[in-house]
């Protein structure tokens, strides 16, 4: 068995001890590299009031490579596809070892409040978002209410 790198341990401890407001990340019981994450929808965004579940996995070479993050809760967002995959640069080429789980999750939270339809992952959503933002926001709110607020 490979022991957990110190960094992961530290991060985990810190996440548990000083959780980021609106974000909770709890490591899985059986796998310390696997986190159950819940992110609250940011205020003043169509996702307000929703509790979005994500899963986060720290790959073997973390922190040299980015964690893998995926929305478990369905969400209507131009940068998040149906499978919950997230289009976020820091999760891809912009990853830096200086980033941490919390920063990643914060970025994701920020992404919720600032959708970027220009760099879409869910093309239909992005299309709608560009064409009729109000409608898209309504959809988003609808989805949030439907998927993210029923506990």
């Amino acid at each position, binding site marked *: 068995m490979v*022991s957990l790198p*110190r*960094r992961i341990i*530290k*991060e985990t401890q810190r996440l548990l001890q000083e959780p980021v407001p609106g974000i909770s990340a709890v490591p899985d019981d059986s796998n310390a590299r696997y986190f159950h994450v819940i992110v609250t929808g940011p205020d003043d965004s169509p996702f307000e009031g929703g509790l979005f579940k994500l899963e986060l996995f720290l790959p073997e*070479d973390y*922190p*040299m490579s980015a964690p893998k993050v995926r929305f478990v809760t369905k969400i209507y967002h131009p940068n998040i596809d149906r499978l919950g995959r997230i289009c976020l640069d820091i999760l891809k080429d*912009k990853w*830096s*070892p*200086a*980033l*941490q789980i919390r920063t990643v999750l914060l970025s994701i939270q920020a992404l919720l409040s600032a959708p970027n339809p220009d760099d879409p992952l869910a093309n239909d959503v992005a299309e709608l978002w560009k064409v009729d933002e109000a409608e898209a926001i309504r959809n988003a709110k609808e989805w949030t209410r439907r998927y993210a607020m029923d506990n």
Partner: protein
Amino acid sequence: MEQFEQLLTCAICLDRYRNPKLLPCQHSFCMEPCMDGLVDYVRRQVKCPECRAEHRIPYQGVQGYPTNVTLQRFLELHIEITGEMPDPTSGQIMKRCAVCTEKSYCVHCSHCSKDVCPMCKAAHMDILRREIARINNQVRRALHRLEDMFALVEKNMAALQHNCNSVTEEVDEIYRRLIKAAKDRTDFLKTEIDRYLGVEIKNLTTLKDNLQQEISNIQSNCDLADRHMGTEDVEWEDVELLDTKDIFLKTVDFIRNFEAEMGDYTRRVRFTMATDPNQLVLHVSTYGDLNIAMPHQLTGQQQLAPGPGLMRSKSDHRLAAQYRQPDERYGEDSGRVSPLAGRKFGQRYQRRDRDYDYEDEPRPQRSRTRSRFLHGGENTDSDNDTSGPRVRFGADQPKDQRPTALDTEALSKGPLSGISRLYDCPQVIARITEVKKPKPVEEPQPQVQQPKPQPKRTPSLAQRQVSEEDEITKIKRQMKNAPGERGTPDRPGQERVSALRREEVHSPPSSAPESPPPQSPSAQGGSSSESSDESSQQQSPAAGSRKTSVTRQPQQLSRRSSTASDTPSTGGESARKVSTTGAAFTTEQLKQKFQNKIEPKIEVPAPKPFVSRFLRGGVGRPLTTTTTPAPVSATKEEEEEESSSSEETDSSEESSEEQAVATGDKSDIGPLLARSAQARKSSRDETYSPTRSPTTRTPTSYQQDTPTAAAPWRTRTAANNTSTEDEAPASTRYGSTSSGFTSRFLNKSKSAAAVSPDEEDPGTTRRFGSSASSTSNTASQPAGSKSRYAALKDRKARLARSKSSHSLADDDDDEEPMTPSAYLASRYGPGTSLAKSRSSHAIKSRETSPEPSAASSSSGLASSSSTAPGEKDGAALSSWARYLKNKYGSRNKDTMSSNSRRLSLGLPLRSDPEEETKNTQGSPTSPTQHPPFHQGFGVDTSTRSKYLNKRRQVFSLGSRGSETGCFTWPRGVATGPGDIIAVADSSNHRVQVFDSNGIFQKEFGGYGNGEGEFDCLAGVAVNRIGQFIIADRYNHRIQVMDPSGRFLRAFGSQGTADGKFNYPWGVTTDALGFIYVCDKENHRVQVFQSDGTFVGKFGSHGRGVGQLDHPHYIAVSNTNRVLVSDSNNHRVQVFDVNGRHISTIGSEGCEDGQFKFPRFRRSFSLPAGDVASSSNVPLIPPTLESGSGSGRPGVYSGRGQREQSVTDLQPRRSISEGVRLMGLRRGRVQGPRRSSSYLDQLYPRVRPREPPCSSILRDAQSKLDRVTARKSEMEATIPLYRRQFSGPLFLPY
């Protein structure tokens, strides 16, 4: 602070920066693994994680980036401020693990002898553990073979016994039958003879009767015929005459014919034997032979059984391989010894072969087994190959010999296998105790232990492999790092075994005794061996540069203190022979031997008087010892002698000796200190012989001579004579004194006398005789004195005696030596005795005065009376009295004021002879006069006398162990209210509390870092209200316990900030309750209020004035001087309570007034402040003012006075600190007033004005010290002499 922390944290590893490298973008990251991980090897650039700037990697790699020095400074600063320990891996560099090739901080792994990462190491250790477990299983499984063998042997024994019995019976039977046959025949013959005799006798008798009758008849006939026939008186008829004629004719005829038959009656009986009697006797005398069925099949097999059995079993787990080789070797009978073959199994066979002339039968058998083994061995070989590391054994074990952790010479090893018992290994014990949990022995020390089980197979394997395998495989192995530890461990074993074997070969019969019993010897033996082990390990290094004088005394002390266990060991070689304990051959003994050898050398060089004296003392021992029965052995070694002397003293004369010593000590002041000390020693030991006297300077030759001379059962007197003779040049009388000796006391006295000459001028020496005589008298006259003492116990009586002798001496000095006045003696005697015994406190002395005075007076009388003849003889006696006389007498001659002397002696000041005369006139027994004297001199004399007083051992506590009352590395001692003695039992992580009599009262604490738990506590102090203050060393805190041992509070944590500690060591409190802590690794002393509030600190690391380097112990005198044992600066520094430096005592060295790694002996933190350098002569620093104090621990405690002693510990670290006083090594603590044994040691030789010893001596000394390290450990603390004596003294009793 939070942000500060953050700044020091690497963004990548989120840890404290480790070797931060600065990127051109000004961001810093740890070099490894962080920066390493950033490297894009393809593009050879690094992308800053913070700003994503991309930088080219320098040519040398990321290492080429500049180190962020600023950041590093900050890191250091941070560490300093917060006191957090630097990352253990900070100094290390990541290397590739030789096993998994991962980069990490590698550690050397003994398993594969590579540098491996912790994980691999853990895995390896796990492997080792499992292997051990497995082998253990195998051993367990195979153990039954031994057990079987054991049973078999037992059975064989029984069978043998039975057999012998039956044979005996048979023989008896034969004997009986033979006897019976002989007897029967004899009887028969006898009866036949008797019968024949009877018949013959009867016949003869009848014949005789008949003959008689015939004779008478014929006679009468003849007479008748003469008378009547020839004459014609009677009318005879012719018929009648004719008849008569016929009758006569018949008679004539009868007589003529009679002869023929006589032959019948001359028959004799003759005894003849069928066979030649000689032959018969021969036959009978050799009527039977014992045919001992020798080795041949039956017995042979049985005896062989053990070997093969074991081997076979071992073959299973490759142990067989080993055996195979031994077997082969035996076959070849080559000189080599296989590692384990050296075991006596093999040996036994071998010897058998030789001794009994076995036929070759056993050999074939062996070979058979061997072949089997071979087979097994090969199998195992293949096993090995597959199993990895094992295989490597073979490669080159000879090259790297791994130090085996558990292989201590001193361990008692199994006699057959040379396997040591793990439980005997101090390390193992330590480990186990550390862990506290009762783990299996093997668990705690997987690595270390490994050598044990494995050695068995390893050696054989290795060798076999080497022999069998070709170069290539070898090389391969090497490549694999084969040399590994596996190979190495067996090495020592091998040697051991071979050594054993050699021994056996040389002296087969004696081998048994030498080889220690396989498992724990008797309790005594075990303990002694253990202790010796420890001592040897630890002390030998530590002994360093001590002077012989110091070391010796400690030795004696130790011996005395540890009576039972020591005595066997002390004897050295001879002791071994003599010793019935059967304890293993301990290292100590070896050491002693060694020492003996060395001593002469050492002593030779001693150029200076001081040394010489001490040396002399050492030399003298042999002489005295000759008297003792034990040392009978031809070579009288000093050791033996010492032991014997100690025994003697212990048994009979402890008290007296002590007393004498005490008196000597007390009486002396200033210049006399040295002398008194010597006197003490001499008196005590008897060992001090004059040979080394500075005046005579016959040192080396004498010493060497003495052993030889003494060897052949010399009487004491002879020994004494020799000694005296040696001294003769110096003191004319001296020689004469020796002859007179008859009693032990005399002996001692002689020694004392011997000592005296050195002390003073030759002129004084002549008085020796008188003193000796006095002592002898005292000895001889105990009855008389006793009557007076009635109330007093013997011991006291002895004390009195000795004291009286002292007094006598004084008297003599004062007056003329020629007329020793009993009165004077009596008079002064009490005073002196009081002074001495009571530490000369006026009040106390008064109280006690009646008894001692009476005693002293009586004794004084005795001594005086005795002395008179002695002096007259001039040649006669040497004893205390004389000795003292000499001492003091010389003084008298000196222009020095007698007053001072008297002061030193503890005698009242009497400057004028008149007073003396008065005294003489006064009644000898008048006690009334004494008190005033005491008072008079009390103040001045008291200090020294007190000081001298201190050196006696009062008692000793404990032994090594973890039970209550036992110690493992006791480090600190303190006394407290209620006369308790608190001992910091360091490695048992507890504090033990004893009362002033050394009775265990309670203990508290246990291992841990919780409240009330300790981790190797070092110092202990008891404040005025009885709270215990404990320096919890490895927990970096001070704990305060209430008087019952309950946790009150703790303060401090690891760090360098105020109020934080780095291995706090000594701790003490002052009268105001402030707590002083020696913050050892921070090189400072911190002061706290009793509630733990930081008050101040002083000292910094350095060598300058007021700077400290690893201060160990600390003490506060009641004059508010803070004494700190500045250990690594080899000095004691004195501060005031505010931390201002006042003075420094000592410097590095082993000479008087110098220290080697001084440490306070906080052990007796008693009222008086005493500082001593244990190995060196104590200083009498002018600056030190002592509070009142006197040396008895426990007695004074609780009065708010404290005494501290500083000890100069051995230079090497291994020696236990702190409690040396108490004979740490042995784990015992010496406490107040118990028995004599300890006396001397305590006592340092104080020789203030004498020149320091030469460096040569020092060297020799250091050698000696190394050898005698163990003894030295026992060394007593030397109290610091206080010049002024402010407080009242309390009487010891």
